[in-house]
């Protein structure tokens, strides 16, 4: 079980401050929903969690140890797009992570190890409901199936932390509901910490155990450059099966810019 500590993190691009003074700590096994207006730095924050970007100031700790400064298998990710590899079938996409680990030189497995990786991957595909599509290429899958595949692909590495950047933003409402259920089940089974960026407040409250909103506090034109977004509210959600009603005191402003 993993505890993430974000200490006084700032991110500045050139002379544009994007995030300022982000501080929070998560309980092990949290499902954090990150919301906020477009361009406020949610994806930037996830990129820092991934190690793809370094914070300009401050630091991020996992179980008290500073983050590796590049992506690694303990932090899985699912993006809205380009999350799966178009040249591999569903099965190959999921097996890939196992092959990387076991075969440094060729990146491929053979014989018994391959059979094992294959079986593990098929199980994983089954648990996201893709058993019938294991030999299809991503271009042959619908959007919802592609995102389920991306989740399976990330989970097979058993990451301590799973980072989701608007993973369901492009899906139809009905399909979205299905994937939500799968997501919640996997989260409970695997016991990992999840950070999910979303634009949809009801999704945030439906899935998250905690909803954190980023927003700029100072918005006057002359302040635009010097000040970035920070945490404007941070709310624990109890009882995960409660209806997707945002609490009365939360303004919708965070989701609509």
């Amino acid at each position: 079980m993993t505890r993430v500590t974000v200490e006084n993190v700032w991110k500045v691009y050139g002379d544009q401050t994007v995030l300022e003074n982000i501080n929070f700590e998560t309980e092990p096994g949290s499902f954090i929903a990150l919301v906020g207006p477009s361009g406020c730095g949610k994806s930037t924050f996830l990129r820092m969690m991934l190690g793809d970007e370094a914070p300009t100031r401050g630091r991020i700790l996992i179980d008290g140890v500073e983050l590796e400064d590049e992506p690694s298998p303990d932090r899985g990710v699912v993006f809205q797009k380009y999350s799966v590899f178009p040249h591999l079938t569903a099965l190959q996409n999921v097996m890939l992570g196992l092959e990387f680990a076991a075969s440094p030189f060729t990146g491929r497995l053979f014989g018994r190890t391959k059979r094992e990786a294959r079986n593990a991957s098929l199980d994983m595909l089954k648990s996201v409901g893709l058993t019938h599509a294991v030999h299809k290429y991503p271009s042959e899958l619908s959007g919802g199936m592609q995102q389920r595949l991306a989740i399976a692909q990330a989970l097979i590495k058993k990451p301590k932390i799973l980072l989701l950047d608007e993973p369901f933003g492009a899906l139809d409402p009905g399909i979205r509901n299905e994937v939500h259920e799968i997501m919640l089940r996997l989260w409970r089974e695997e016991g990992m910490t999840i950070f999910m960026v979303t634009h949809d407040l009801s999704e945030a409250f439906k899935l998250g155990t905690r909803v954190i909103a980023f927003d700029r506090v100072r918005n006057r034109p002359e302040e635009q450059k010097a000040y970035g977004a920070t945490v404007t509210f941070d709310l624990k959600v109890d009882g995960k099966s409660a209806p997707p009603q945002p609490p009365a005191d939360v303004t919708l402003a965070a989701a609509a810019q």
Partner: protein
Amino acid sequence: MRRLINRRPDVASRFGLMILPFVIVVIAYMVASEARLSVNPNDKLLPGWSTISDAIERMAFLPDQRTGDYLLWSDTLSSLTRLGIGVAIATLIGGIFGILQGLIPYFRATFNAFTGVLSMIPPLSVLPILFIIFGLGELAKVMLVVIGIVPFIIRDLALRTAEIPHEEIIKAQTLGASTWQIILRIVVPQMLPRLIDGVRLSLGAAWLFLIAAEAIASDSGLGYRIFLMRRYLAMDVILPYVAWITILAFALDLSLRLFQRIAFRWMYRGN
């Protein structure tokens, strides 16, 4: 009246329209040839059909008196061998450098400007240096093809590689891939079809350089024959050779496209 932009020819008129410009060219040739031949029956510039078909028979279906070869076929074999080897080498070099240049920041910093400058040098103008380095035999011809097209292939592929979504590279790293594994399992398989596109685009230049090389020092090949025949304005041989090169170029292009479709099904599945 619908707008011109909304009107589509049906299958029959599409075919008719397609062959129209070819028919016009053929007729224009026939008229011009006729006119010249009526002035000078031995005119070599625009020979009549019978002269051309004689030449085709002579080059393709009768053995050469001196060597006993069927010249068109032996020339084709020489040229295609050179072209094939040259393009293969260029593809290999272009593939490796293109991918590294598109993917690895240090590699890009080192070679980007250099290949940019290289691609601007007209290869024909540095022939003497090429001769010194590669001699004057088959190697030189192959190398002229390689040097002529490799900068383009590198630059094209480097661009394509840089276009791979950053998300994919990040995702691969979160799955534990090393740089080498990323290249091997993510980048190379996705870039192979693009590489074929790059090769297809540079085939025209490859032919050009091959012909130039064969014009400079050779004793066989399609370019050799064309430039030798040019000495005697033997257009009855040159025209069929040009047509033949055009057909070969088409066939090569088509077979690369077919290969791409068959070998990289993932690009064409689904939508």
